[in-house]
Structure formats: C-alpha cells, structure tokens
C-alpha cells in the first residue's frame, strides 16, 4: 500500500493528464482518474482518521463525488494535485465539523495526498445507499441500471424510452442531490 514517495512529479503528470482528458469528455480517463484518486484519498484519510474509522469509505466517496461535481473549478493551467488535496482537506474538515469534533487538520504540502496509495476498499456504511433509496423512482432506476447492471446512460435511456440527453441530465441532478443530501445529514 505504500511506495509513491519521491514520485510526486510522475504521479502529478499522470493525474493531470487524466483530468484534462476527462474535462474534454473522456469517460475512460475520468474512470482512471477517480480510481487512482480513491486509493490516494483512502491513504490520506487513514492518516487523519485512523485505519478503523467507520466513516472512512464514506468520506472517500463523498470526496470523489465532490471532485466530480466541482470539476469546472479546476484551472487547467495549474497543477492538479494541490487542487485535489484542497478539496480532500475541505471535505475532511467539514466531516469533523459536522460530527462536532474539534480536530485540527494541518495544512500540509499537497504532495501528502499522493504519498500513500491504499487501494483496499474498506467497509461502507450505508449512507449513499440509503440516500439513493430516497430518490424518486425514475432516477433510482436509472442509477441502478448504470451502477449495478453496468449499462451506459444511453442504453439505460433507450430501455426507459427517454432521450439520452434527459437521462444524462437526470443522472447529473441525482448526483448533485446526493452530494447535497450527504452534507445535510446530521451525523
């Protein structure tokens, strides 16, 4: 799970390349970017929360969702890792704030984010799953089909007899709603 120390430039170049392709609409690059980031985020959060924190994986997911939804704020002329680190730290601080714990989260060099890669997915509490069940049926079905049955949005849309555009909008709105709902939950 370790071993990226001293390879900052290499990892940064790779992540930034994926990010830029993803911003150009490349779903494959987006998947690779988020996959790699989930390992680094887990590594970073383990350092701050401890390995056995019950909410570790939830925090990883929340941060991935935020990174996804806030992509437009990234400035392509700037390095990527500091952007991702700042989002991760913001989500961590917010996490402590909402659970009413006073924990100081030091502002470290952004390289800390990609210092440890931890690809082992932890146990998830059921936050996102439970919130998903609160979505209206049409949106929930769309998400289930893309998530579990592995359909693309186009295929799912075709099955439901809606246009691909409206299915895309529906998916995007659902994700925005999820992100908001996770935040608003009092835990």
């Amino acid at each position, binding site marked *: 799970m370790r071993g990226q120390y001293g390879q900052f430039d290499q990892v940064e170049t790779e992540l930034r390349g994926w990010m830029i392709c993803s911003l150009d609409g490349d779903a494959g690059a987006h998947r690779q970017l988020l996959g790699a980031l989930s390992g680094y985020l887990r590594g970073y959060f383990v350092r701050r929360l401890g390995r056995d924190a019950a909410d570790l994986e939830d925090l990883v997911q929340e941060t991935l969702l935020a990174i996804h939804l806030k992509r437009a*704020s990234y400035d392509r002329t700037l390095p990527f890792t500091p952007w991702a680190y700042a989002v991760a730290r913001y989500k961590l601080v917010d996490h402590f704030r909402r659970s009413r714990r006073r924990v100081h989260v030091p502002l470290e060099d952004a390289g800390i984010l990609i210092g440890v890669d931890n690809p082992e*997915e932890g146990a998830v509490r059921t936050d996102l799953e439970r919130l998903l069940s609160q979505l209206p049926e049409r949106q929930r079905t769309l998400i289930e089909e893309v998530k579990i049955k592995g359909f693309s949005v186009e295929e799912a849309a075709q099955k439901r007899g809606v246009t691909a555009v409206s299915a895309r909008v529906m998916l995007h709105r659902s994700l925005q709603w999820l992100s908001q709902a996770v935040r608003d939950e009092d835990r």
Partner: protein
Amino acid sequence: MKTGDLIELLANDAAATPPGVAWRRLGNALAAGGALTLLLVILWLRCQPLLMVAVQPWFWMKAAYTGLLTVSGVILVRRLATPGAPVRALPMWAAMIFLAMVVLGAGQLLAATPGERLGLWLGQTWRVCSPLILLLSVPIYVGLIVAVRSLAPIHPIRTGAAVGFAAGALAATLYGLHCPEQGAAFVVTWYSLGIAAATTAGGLAGRRLLRW
C-alpha cells in the same frame, strides 16, 4: 454502495467541461447583475445622458479607480473558487490601487485653499454615497454567489468577502454614472466605504451561502 460502483456512475456523468467555463459563469453573473444595477442607476437614481457623462474627466477618474478594483476583485473571486490556487498577490494589488487614490486625493486637498477642503471631501452627497453603493451591489452579489456556488470555494467567509468586494466595486463604477462628485478625496473615502461595507456584508453572508 461500493466505491467502484460510484466511480462507474460518475464516469457515466463525465460531460465535457471546456476550459473557460468557470470564467464564463462569472462573466454571465457580472453581466446579469451589472445590467440590473445599471437599470437601477438609470431609472431610479437617474443620470445624465451617458454621452454627456462620458466627456467628463472626473467620471473616468472614478471609473478607473473602481474599475481596477473590480478587476482585482473578480480575479480574486476566481482564485478563491479554485481549491489550491494562489491568492496572496491580489489583496496587495487592491491595496496599491487604494493607496494611489489616497495620494491623488491628498494631493487635490493640499492644492485647494483651506476653505475649499471640507467641501471637496464631503461634496454634496457624502451621506448617501456609501449606502447607495452597498444597495446597488446586491444584484451583482447575488449573481456572483450563484456562480461561485457552482465552483469550489474552500474558504466561505473569505470568498464571500471577495464577492462582496467585487460586487461593491462594480456597483460603485456604475454609481459613478449618477454621482456628480468630482474630487478624488471624496471618491477614495465614500466610494471605498461603500465597497468596504459590501465586502463585510458579503463575508458574513458567504459564511452561510458558500458551504458545499
């Protein structure tokens, strides 16, 4: 939900996001809010025909001051809406613009006879100037906040203050169309006070409005 499943969902939502999209959102907000404020200046406060205003050098003196503040404010907002972006230099720019105006205003006061000085500083409208700028900044503030909420400000209070500052500076620029005052000392005091009020109010409101 497994993290892998979530990533699959997100990959299906990876719409193209062109490079200038953040600037476009901020630009649209400035245009929409600015248009509303301009309408308020023209229809409610009233001003001379714009062509007549445009030949007055003191209008351009005021517009240069508040226009430069607007530019530094908007760039600061863009930076603060980008996690990890450097922001240090921009408040310095704004401070330097302010100081330059203080020097100009002090120069004008020194050049005037002692009897004229108070009139030059207070003008005819010092009582209403700052409150009106604060009021006129509201449409621009609202527009910019909507745009910034779609981005990722990690310091809500600071970002709210920067949004208030940019909105106040643009509102002051448009208020200059109505305002009959001609002295730099007037502008650097009462315009700046209005912008400072917008900055403070913006920071207080930002704390609630800019969480994500």
